[in-house]
């Protein structure tokens, strides 16, 4: 077995046997053991790991829920309540899944925010950002269809409102809507296909997450200083340094999500969804889940239906081109004194949009939604592409080690900006 002996990398002969035929063990060693992380990364860099773990928890809890769920309009509501009452720890599965969805979005929003503030979407990580936006889109689709499954009032009417949007598209709209619903109105055909798609989409997300992680590992992670890794001294090994940091973040996250799951499991739920769906009774206010509410606010801010739909989809589509809208060569907002505040205002604005998206679209709320809408697009189309012309970035530190030791911000290097390119 001379061939094998050349590949004796590991003490364990079984690992060698696998490694020789499929070098998966060295791959994991390289990507999750030796992978160099910039050592100045703060806890915002733990949210990618948190999101991945949440996704896995959602998939596992979802599989067990699906074993007990009946996708039929006459039985869906009761089958969910049966899970809550008669399935062993069914209430736990269901509350983990429903609150997990909300926390998935919280975690992903912080992750996106992190990427925007520290310029993680810029060269050479543009594709990574695009894959991330795809994940976000898939998450929204999954969350929307998952919300329909309990077949409560909000499920039914939310599905009706959202699928009605497609009928605004000229010429093909009405046909497209019927094709999506499988019927003229939201009914059993719709519930069945939403269940099928809600089951499969998370696995698609998992696949794209795999690409997303593989892509970031090519050029390495960004860091709060937004400067490139120059030497080995700038980094720490993923294991154990980042793993331990992420584990601590997971514990803190565990405490927070457990507090909600066990002591306020319905805080983020709409009460109307505990009333079985009734096509003859429209709820007073049809509201989406809070994590989709900013886009609902944009939709309703426009008096024209087609215009609202276009702007709503546009508000997501514009995220794809962010890496090319931002013309500044400086990644991190720590060194962009003006843009920094516009980015923070963007976050606040997104939050406010979500808030008014949950309230009736009238009077002051409508006005706020319209101002928020203008800022949302203004941020991407005016501020981001042109701010670098009037902004003088602070001088970048020489290297990550300088930042880590605390002297980084004072270290002057007038040429650093060019080096980033």
């Amino acid at each position, binding site marked *: 077995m001379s061939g094998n002996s050349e590949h004796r990398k590991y003490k364990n002969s079984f690992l060698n046997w696998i490694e020789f035929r499929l070098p998966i063990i060295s791959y994991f060693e390289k990507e999750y053991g030796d992978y160099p992380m910039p050592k100045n990364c703060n806890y915002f860099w733990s949210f990618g790991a948190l999101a991945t773990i949440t996704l896995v928890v959602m998939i596992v809890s979802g599989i067990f829920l699906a074993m007990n769920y009946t996708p039929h309009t006459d039985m869906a509501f009761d089958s969910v309540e049966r899970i809550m009452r008669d399935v062993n720890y069914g209430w736990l599965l269901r509350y983990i899944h429903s609150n997990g969805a909300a926390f998935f979005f*919280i975690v992903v929003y912080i992750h996106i925010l992190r990427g925007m503030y520290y310029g993680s979407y810029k060269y050479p990580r543009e594709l990574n950002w695009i894959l991330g936006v795809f994940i976000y889109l898939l998450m929204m689709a999954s969350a929307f269809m998952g919300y329909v499954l309990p077949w409560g009032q909000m499920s039914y009417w939310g599905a009706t409102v959202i699928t009605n949007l497609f009928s605004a598209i000229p010429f093909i709209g009405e046909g497209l809507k019927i094709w999506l619903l499988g019927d003229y109105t939201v009914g059993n055909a719709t519930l069945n296909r939403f269940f099928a798609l809600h089951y499969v989409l998370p696995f698609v997300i998992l696949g794209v997450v795999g690409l997303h992680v593989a892509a970031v590992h090519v050029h390495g992670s960004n860091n709060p200083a937004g400067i490139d890794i120059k030497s080995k001294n700038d980094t720490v090994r993923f294991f154990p340094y980042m793993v331990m940091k992420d584990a601590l973040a997971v514990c*803190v996250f565990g405490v927070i999500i457990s507090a909600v*799951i066990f*002591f306020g499991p319905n805080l983020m739920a709409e009460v109307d969804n505990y009333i079985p769906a009734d096509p003859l009774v429209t709820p007073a206010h049809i509201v989406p889940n809070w994590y989709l509410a900013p886009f609902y606010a944009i939709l309703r801010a426009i008096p024209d239906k087609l215009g609202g739909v276009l702007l709503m989809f546009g508000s997501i589509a514009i995220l794809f081109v962010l890496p090319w809208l931002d013309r500044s060569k400086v990644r991190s907002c720590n060194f962009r004194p003006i843009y920094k505040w516009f980015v923070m205002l963007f976050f606040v604005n997104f939050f406010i949009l979500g808030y008014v998206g949950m309230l009736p679209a009238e009077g002051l709320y409508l006005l706020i939604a319209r101002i928020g809408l203008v800022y949302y697009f203004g941020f991407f189309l005016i501020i981001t592409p042109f701010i670098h012309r009037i902004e003088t970035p602070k001088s970048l530190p020489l290297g990550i080690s300088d930042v880590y030791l605390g002297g980084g911000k004072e270290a002057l290097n007038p040429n650093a900006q060019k080096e980033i390119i």
Partner: protein
Amino acid sequence: MRFIIIILLFLLSTSIFAAESNSGPMPKHKWSFNGITGTFDRAALQRGFKVYQEVCSGCHSMKLLYYRDLRDIGFSEAEVKVIAAEYTVVDGPNDEGEMYDRDARPADRFVSPYANDNEARLSNNGAYPPDLSVITKARKYGEDYIYNFILGYEEPPEGMEIGDGMYYNKWVGGNQISMPQPIYDGSVDYDDGTDNNALQLTEDVVTFLKWAAEPELEVRKNLGIKVILFFLVLGTFIYFVKNKLWREVD
């Protein structure tokens, strides 16, 4: 420091949504099941079940409950059999192909007062009495709303037009409802000698409804304390390990 910011961000986002669903002018009642270690008072649950049986169940169904569930509120196996046997269910078809009536068993769902929704509407001037199985989860402010609502019947204010067969209630949307005041002082006689004034009857029946909607509440809170403690202890250990590890990084 940054760690604290992250925690605050989390708490901020959750507390805002928590506040949104819990704030408002609804007066709060002191419930035994509130709080981290809240539990249901078994005696109150049994009294509340009696109020449901004698008052609410005339019109309102509780289709999601089984008679066997009553063991959770302290009834014995034998008592549950007796309670179930008071009701009649339609079973069948038997070997002759006929449907037949029989006494309900613990494995049966709570028997509804009406055969179907249409009969329910017909008997109540077109208004459908909602199922009460998850009613405290299906109304904003939950149990506090139900409590205030049951006690919220009053004379309408001067000049307010009340529709035919409608009643004034200060908590319901639009202040008019077709359900008459359900509970008065002494509506139900308690076997255990508890004072049966309207406040007590209402508190008991709402406690029962809360249990019906969230029968897992006690187990949930109990498990929650353990899970959170687990994360806290594990997190503390990891914190020290992580600090020791990162001290070497320069």
